[in-house]
């Protein structure tokens, strides 16, 4: 039983390293900052979670602490990518292809209008 869990852990480590490499490849290849954010953050989140979970499966004494790191990465990594995307938008970094619809700009204008009413 333990050996089966160990083999599952090794497979998870290999899958995680593949996803980490794909995320870094997306960081290198994508054309603008928003594409880089979505390629790098999603793929590397899945890769890091899978790899640390695999480490916890291979050595069952470490499973609890590995689970803590996995939960922390699952909470913190989307948060930091969200903050980065917001900062890149507010710093007026335009996208590579010109977008027709900009919903976030309208939302900011609505916020400003509401603040004036108050």
């Amino acid at each position, binding site marked *: 039983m333990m050996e089966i869990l160990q083999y599952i852990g*090794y497979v998870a*480590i*290999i899958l*995680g*390293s*593949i996803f*980490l*490499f794909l*995320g*870094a*490849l997306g*960081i*290198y290849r994508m054309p603008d*900052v928003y594409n*880089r*954010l979505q390629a*790098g*953050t999603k793929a*590397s*989140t899945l*890769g*890091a979670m899978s*790899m*640390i979970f695999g*480490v916890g499966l*291979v*050595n069952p*004494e*470490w499973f609890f*602490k*590995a689970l*803590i*790191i996995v939960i*922390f*990465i699952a909470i*913190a*990594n989307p*948060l*930091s*990518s969200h*903050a*980065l995307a*917001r*900062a*890149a938008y*507010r*710093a007026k*970094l335009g996208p590579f292809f010109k977008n027709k619809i900009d919903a976030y700009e309208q939302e900011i204008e609505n916020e400003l209008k509401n603040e004036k009413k108050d």
Partner: protein
Amino acid sequence: MTFVFVFAFSLILLGLILSFIRFVKGPSSADRVVALDTMSIIATSAFALLALMFDRYIYIDIALIYAVLGFIGVIVIARYLEGAL
């Protein structure tokens, strides 16, 4: 199980090199912060894998602290780029 470690560490090294290239030549500072974020995540999982390879329990703690510090650093730099700090 040497194959697993060699395979995973070679892919991790390639990923670190690719994101470090983006970190050096990225056109804007947001690109550099994105590359730094990815590098810190890759380093976190590399620490966990090193703990398994050398059979040292303390490296897992280092991975946890590195994840927390990388997250705080990225949040602070993002707030600074936004102009709110």
